[in-house]
């Protein structure tokens, strides 16, 4: 099974990198660009075949290592 984990900053946490990317896009002429937030994408291959077990263990991975839940939130996507 394959999993994709998205780690992004929580709402309200300042994202200076996202801001810089937004400015750069504006400077390139993309005037419609408003707020930009950036994050991380982590692809994980899992030996687990059971979806709910995989989800539980991925959640634990996020809480323990992949995200710092003081500032970040995460989303898990599973692909069989």
């Amino acid at each position, binding site marked *: 099974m394959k999993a994709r984990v998205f780690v992004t900053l929580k709402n309200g*946490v300042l994202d*200076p990198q996202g801001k810089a990317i937004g400015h750069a896009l504006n400077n390139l002429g993309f005037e419609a660009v408003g707020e930009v937030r950036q994050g991380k994408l982590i692809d994980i291959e899992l030996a687990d075949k059971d979806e709910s077990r995989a989800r539980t263990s991925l959640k634990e991975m996020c809480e323990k290592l992949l995200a*710092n839940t*003081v*500032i970040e939130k995460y989303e898990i996507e599973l692909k069989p």
Partner: protein
Amino acid sequence: MKSAVIVFPASNRDRDTAEVLEKVIGKKPHMVWHADSEMPNVDLIVIPGGFSYGDYLRCGAMAAQSHIMRDVIAKANKGVAVLGICNGFQILTESRLLPGALMRNAGLKFVSKPVPVEVEETQSMFTRRYKKKQRVVYPVAHGEGNYFADEDTLDRLEGEGRVVFRYAGGENPNGSARDIAGVLNEKRNVMGLMPHPECACDPLLGPPDGLGLFEGLVEALS
């Protein structure tokens, strides 16, 4: 008094720290490799600056999961003094021994320069040798020193006298919330700070403003 310095792959202030500890204690600290599982019996553990594990994932995130940190956390919970400097501060927040998180500098640039810092709290073994509001100059050298915690946590830290150092003179080098440069844990035996007191201990390199921190620790722990 016995001390130890933890060494991770890509720690780079470990030897500066060891030199200062030897100077003030009169004994070399134990240099403890990150893959060891047990800490020697010491009164003070220092987690030094650097870029442990290449700052992969988040600064301090990998180091916080290392073998040795399990024992450091256990020792800290038993009351052993733990000091985290720069990357050491990041490792302590990632280990949840200290509240909050250290984010990318607000200006996005790596900042390396001496900065004025005010001693906000002297009721701690780390700062007992300083006067309240004393202004010292410590160098900073970091790209991710922007201290963040939610408003309730910040209020609690201030209310409990756990904000130990603050950037002073309108010079906040990284955008830290409420100019915070260093904080204590609830039991006041664990402190983390972004500036480098260990690099302000030799008069050849400028005013030795950092010595007071280490001398205070020797006084408290001997």
